[in-house]
């Protein structure tokens, strides 16, 4: 790449994304930007989100315009210092466009694809990206699946191997959830590490996945290099029981949408496709029963069954919370044991790892080294 010239390219959010549409630039050409600034809104079939700046500098060119549809990797804009000559930037853009080849369809040429393992008689689907280092295991929350990490997985995998799994009862894994307890899921995660011959892993858990990470750390501290707890369960008794019940019982788009909107600080992120995908999941035989079993074990009567605050800090622990989390209150981050790193992000909700992905990824990167 030419000296001092940085590209802003169409991101790849999730396995199925092939192209994205420019919904609009959030900063003007010529503006000074710093890493983490939201610079352009992108829409895909599945999700809409802003691309955050990875580099500091001046936005010198908005190459793609509102309404343009670009393949993954396509050139959106150019960030460079003021000192770089316009002619150099123009030459760079011309060269990039002349040589850019859209990525081939991953499904057909052995690119990223999910795999599965048998654990305790259940098929567990997972996705692996990156290689080397101490592995990271991403554990989604209640009603989620490995796609909850679509803004994190690839970024974290730049420096190490990162696995994301579908818990039993979720995604494309078997729908048998045993007694539905956190302990059951913790055994599955430990079994997953066994199956992949992982000695020790950094566990990153969101929501109920955080409680599962805590339970693994309690049962098998030697297997856990660190835990990162995002909007986590397992640190207090409060949880929005109406959300859990609404998510389980809603059978139609209109009924489900208001519940899902509680997850995000920006309700506009709840697209029709997201709701359709959640309904498609919930309509699979056995899912509603599995979710009810989990809810009854994990949060009976609208309160979390078990807090594991003492486990936080027994292994290196990072806690990340959206200050406006409507599902599990950020106050659960208060007063945790010494040595627990805690970041509460203003203006964020329960899905902070999606809505503030760059910052969350940076914090995790720092933690797991």
């Amino acid at each position, binding site marked *: 790449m030419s000296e001092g010239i940085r590209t802003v390219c169409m991101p790849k959010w999730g396995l199925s994304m092939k192209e994205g549409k420019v919904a609009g630039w959030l900063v003007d050409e010529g503006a000074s930007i710093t890493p983490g600034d939201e610079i352009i809104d992108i829409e895909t079939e599945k999700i809409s989100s802003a691309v955050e700046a990875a580099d500091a500098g001046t936005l010198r060119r908005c190459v793609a315009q509102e309404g343009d549809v670009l393949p993954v990797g396509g050139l959106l804009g150019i960030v460079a210092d003021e000192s770089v000559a316009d002619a150099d930037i123009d030459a760079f853009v011309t060269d990039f466009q002349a040589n850019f080849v859209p990525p081939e369809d991953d499904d057909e040429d052995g690119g990223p694809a999910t795999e599965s393992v048998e654990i305790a008689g259940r098929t567990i689907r997972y996705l692996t990206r990156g290689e080397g280092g101490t592995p990271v295991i991403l554990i989604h929350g209640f009603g989620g699946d490995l796609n909850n990490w679509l803004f994190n997985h690839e970024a974290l995998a730049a420096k190490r191997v990162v696995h994301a799994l579908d818990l039993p009862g979720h995604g494309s894994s078997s729908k048998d959830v045993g007694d539905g307890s956190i302990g059951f899921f913790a055994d599955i995660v430990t079994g997953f590490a066994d199956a992949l011959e992982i000695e020790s892993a950094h566990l990153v858990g969101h929501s109920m996945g955080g409680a599962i990470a805590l339970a693994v750390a309690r049962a098998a501290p030697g297997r856990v290099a660190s835990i990162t707890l995002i909007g986590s369960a397992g640190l207090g008794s409060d949880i929005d029981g109406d959300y859990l019940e609404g998510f389980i019982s809603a059978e*139609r788009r209109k009924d489900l949408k208001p519940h899902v909107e509680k997850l995000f600080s920006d309700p506009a992120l709840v697209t029709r496709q997201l709701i359709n995908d959640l309904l*498609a999941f919930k309509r699979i*035989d056995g899912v509603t029963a599995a979710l009810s079993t989990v809810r009854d074990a994990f949060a009976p009567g609208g309160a979390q069954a078990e807090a594991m605050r003492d486990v936080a800090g027994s292994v290196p622990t990072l806690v990340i919370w959206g200050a406006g989390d409507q599902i599990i209150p950020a106050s659960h981050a208060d007063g945790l044991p010494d040595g627990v790193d805690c970041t509460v992000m203003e203006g964020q909700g329960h899905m902070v790892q999606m809505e503030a992905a760059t910052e969350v990824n940076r914090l995790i990167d720092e933690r797991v080294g």
Partner: protein
Amino acid sequence: MARTATYQQAINEALAQEMERDETVVVMGEDVAGGLGTDGERDAWGGPLGITKGLYGKYGDRVMDTPISESAFIGAAVGAATAGLRPVAELMFIDFMGVCFDQIFNQAAKFRYMFGGKAETPVVIRTMYGAGLRAAAQHSQCLYPVFTHIPGLKVVTPATPYDAKGLLIQAIRDNDPVIFCEHKGLYTLEGDVPEEPYALPFGEANIVREGDDVSIVTLGRMVHVADEAASALANDGIECEIVDLRTTSPLDEDTVIETVENTGRLVVLDEAHPRCNMATDIAAMVCEKAFDSLKGPIKQVTAPHTPVPFSDTLEDLYIPDAAAVQKAVKAVMESSK
């Protein structure tokens, strides 16, 4: 959800999974077990187009070839349903409804009502419809509006493999008679289909594409024609919202009204003959319930009021195409400025 399957495979999988789950589910019809050109059980053809292929090998006598007498075997299926089975009867072509209509509209559709709610008739009648396969006037009609007219029947017209599987599973589990209409031009269409069983509720339309300028309400194979037209219109700066009704009875009136409230313009696209079809039904319903939201007249795009021609050239002209939809959308835009 990475697995893809065809519309035909999705239907076969729904039947197999429900037969596996519930032993009262039986399949009956002309050639559904064996059929044309086969001599064994393993290679049994499974209907004229192979939709039920493999079921006889797995479920034996629960897959029954019947005599070529629709009045007899549709009547038998209706009777068996009242007596505790969940039969899925195959009426090979919807055009053959004429010879078994009493069994459907006077018997199956009426039992729950006439026996004071004490009788249930959980029968599914799977049937092929639609033009485009050079099958001529007696094998190409879109007669779902006739069934939709009758209280007591549920009528399903899936447009995609995903919907075909989920709606057929719902049809089999449903305790009322369901007419399950399969467009023969869609059997080879591929799409994402989860391997696990799942049921899609009746009466929930699908918004296939979002847009703010014109609503296109449609169903069955015409959903894909609408989509083709909408892609072309998008290049002209016209954004269409496409609503796939999925089931004509029950009908998701709310979603139709909401899309009209959003766009203020409506094109109704239906492959059926133009009189008393889904296009007239939707247009009338919108006029009555959402007239104030309309910025201009509604346009209907349908086949002409003629039998389906056998001539290739005429059949191609007969079926509504994307060009006709584009023309209608532009006319609606023009008349509502």
